[in-house]
């Protein structure tokens, strides 16, 4: 038997085939391609020229002013001056946190890293299923331990001296706000979600009112409430610092969103689970605690990660109430006399940090969703 195998035309395979299929399939496709290429060229050229080719990387004082005057003498605009970022890198990261106490932050990071590696190892093998409980307990314990480590005991303490929460700033504060916001809001959100599905009208109405009110107003108004109204509505002996008040605001705000996430998880549990739990004689509390909630919480983990990412970005709003988180520090840096007029560099750097963190987290959550088979249900 002879097979007459004609080779496919070159325009259908290989690089040319790919180009034709993806870039030049019709005449307007070709137009779009050319237009896009022009756009990419224009943007990349501008960015690379400004950020790298004509940029100043020297960290010597006055380097930026010098670069600018050189450029002005030559009759052109100056490129980026990255020394504002390079000299302030510590400020961006920890802000006003005392520099001699930085080991505490490293210590906290080590605790988190060790726990993360342990989690990964334990969850990977079925053999270590018994150890999972200990890892969860470790995570729960890590919160108070890290809080004490970062804050210290009292001013006179020899071991860990007090670092008031109002000194926490920079990326550190951004993460503290986001993590405390999500962790503290979860139990509240859980209660609110259960309240919203409760058979008791008083609880239901209260939960619905709370959730819908908070979701209907911007975060900034809730932060405003925590800053100005808490001191008014609490007795004078219960006053606390701005950072703590911001944390209260974040938590109250985030709880409404956690509640809606949990409600989604509860709605996804088949009715048969409730009926089966009732049939084996569990009462309402045990049914929720042993049967329904464990399944519901597992289902909402991806949604909670998503909420954490948006909370992480939303922490930037504390700038408006005067806190120095990453964006607040950036704003303060643009006011330094040595680096007048370098807003572009500073805000781009801050945005880059936000981008890296939240992109990494959303990539992680996509992997998590695949691992948990979210799409396949």
């Amino acid at each position, binding site marked *: 038997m002879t097979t007459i195998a004609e080779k496919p035309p070159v325009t259908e395979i290989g690089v040319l085939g790919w180009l034709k299929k*993806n*870039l030049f*399939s019709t005449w307007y*496709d070709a137009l*779009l*391609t050319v237009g*896009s*290429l022009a*756009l*990419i060229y224009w943007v990349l050229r501008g960015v690379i020229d400004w950020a790298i080719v004509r940029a100043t990387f020297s960290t010597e004082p006055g380097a930026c002013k010098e670069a600018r005057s050189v450029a002005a003498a030559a009759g052109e605009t100056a490129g980026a001056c990255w020394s504002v970022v390079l000299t302030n890198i510590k400020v961006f990261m920890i802000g006003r946190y005392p520099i001699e106490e930085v080991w505490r932050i490293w210590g906290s990071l080590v605790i988190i890293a060790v726990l993360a590696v342990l989690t990964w190892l334990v969850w990977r093998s079925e053999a270590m299923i018994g150890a999972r409980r200990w890892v969860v307990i470790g995570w729960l314990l890590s919160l108070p331990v890290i809080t004490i480590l970062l804050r210290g005991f009292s001013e006179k303490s020899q071991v860990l001296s007090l670092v008031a929460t109002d000194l926490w700033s920079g990326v550190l504060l951004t993460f503290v706000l986001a993590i405390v916001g999500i962790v503290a809001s979860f139990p509240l959100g859980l209660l609110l979600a259960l309240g919203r599905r409760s*058979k*008791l*009208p*008083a*609880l239901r109405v*209260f939960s619905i009112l709370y959730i819908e*009110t908070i*979701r*209907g*107003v*911007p975060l*900034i*108004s809730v932060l*405003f*409430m925590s800053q*100005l*109204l808490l001191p*008014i*509505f*609490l*007795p004078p002996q219960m006053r606390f610092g701005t950072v703590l008040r911001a944390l209260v605001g974040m938590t109250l705000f985030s709880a409404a969103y956690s509640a809606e996430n949990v409600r989604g998880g509860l709605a996804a549990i088949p009715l048969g689970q409730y009926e089966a739990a009732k049939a084996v004689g569990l009462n309402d509390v045990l049914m929720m605690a042993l049967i329904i909630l464990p399944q519901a919480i597992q289902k909402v983990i991806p949604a909670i990660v998503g909420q954490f990412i948006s909370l992480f*970005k*939303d*922490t*930037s*709003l504390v*700038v*408006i109430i005067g806190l120095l988180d990453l*964006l607040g520090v*950036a*704003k303060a840096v*643009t006011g330094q006399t040595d680096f007048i*007029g370098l*807003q*572009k560099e500073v*805000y*781009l750097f*801050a*945005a880059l940090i*936000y*981008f890296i963190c*939240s*992109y990494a987290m*959303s990539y992680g959550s996509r992997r998590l969703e695949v691992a948990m088979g979210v799409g396949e249900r």
Partner: protein
Amino acid sequence: MTHSSSAYSAARHHGAVPFWRDIRILRAIAQLVFVIVVLAVGVWLLGNYRNWLAERNLTFSFRFLRLEASFDLAEGIPFKPTDSYARAFLVGVVNTLRVASVGIVLTTLLGLVTGVGRLSRNWLVSHIASVYIELIRNTPLLAQLFFLYFAVILKLPTLKMGDQITAITLPGPIYLSNRGLAMPWPRLSESFGSWWPFLIVALVVAVVLWILRAHGMQRAGRPSFSFVWVALAFLAVPAIGWLVVPGNPLALDVPVVKGLKAKGGTILSPEFVALTLGLVVYTGAFIAEVVRAGILAVPKGQAEAARAQGFTETQILRLIVLPQALRVIIPPLISQYLNLTKNSSLAIGIAFLDLYAVSNTMLNQSGRVVEVFLMIMAAYLSMSLSISLIMNVVNRRIQIVER
């Protein structure tokens, strides 16, 4: 069911279920306890507030709204320092609505284009769209606004240096400078009074034709005349009016640079430009994802079946894919509009005088923390509620269309 409930009531009747195990009584007690706790906390909080007021010799009242504000607001409807606090609040509300309405229109367009671009078969176009979406969605809006305002808009060239116009000039003329954006704008002239009845007639004619067309469509299964005729009629009536009425009812007012300022046309402040642009770009990325999800939600078989029946590609998009995609798109789209409106409160970060920023000034000036806070909440909640109301109406209509 009947059996068990009658057994239950029988048991009750015999007193076999003591009241402390009767589920109905337990529920009532639980609710009562909850209400009492909530009320107690509320009373405690209000008591603290009363003490706070007493220390300062204040009372809770909204009477301060009638007082002279004695600060200036240079954005939106005219305001002078002798106007009242109430008017200041109104200025803020109007400014928020201005940003929200312009923003919603523009962001819908941007989101639609990007969402469709993201699904384009063209590799470059879909990747440019996804880079834009990822960059925007993974950075905070406030950081974007700071960048836009402090690093871009305030760094634009000045309007005029010496005798030369240094602003970025686009045909129109549109002047873009660190003083904001000046562009041509239609102004009503004197003859507009005799022209506007034509507009109403045009609207009536178009609606009547539309109803006739729909009627024909229901009876014969196809429209008796094309949609183009409706549009033509709608445009023709005002055009006739334009010829009949003496003079031009609308005149294009063109900005002119006079001294150090632009006059005429419409002038948008740099804060307004930065806030609107920032909100449009930010929300657009989210709308793009909504649009993409909506289009992907229409099963492939729908388009294939239509193609098999001989529909053209435009007909498939217009009659098969879009109506079904819209059903998925509209609810999340409206909640994005709501997000845009709420996010406009970030205006205070870049000194745009929206509802929140004006309230903040009012509060610093008058010291009426709780009153102003209640006003802010009421304003945002009524906006949210009206948007959710629209959403519910739309949802119901969509459901009727469905089967």
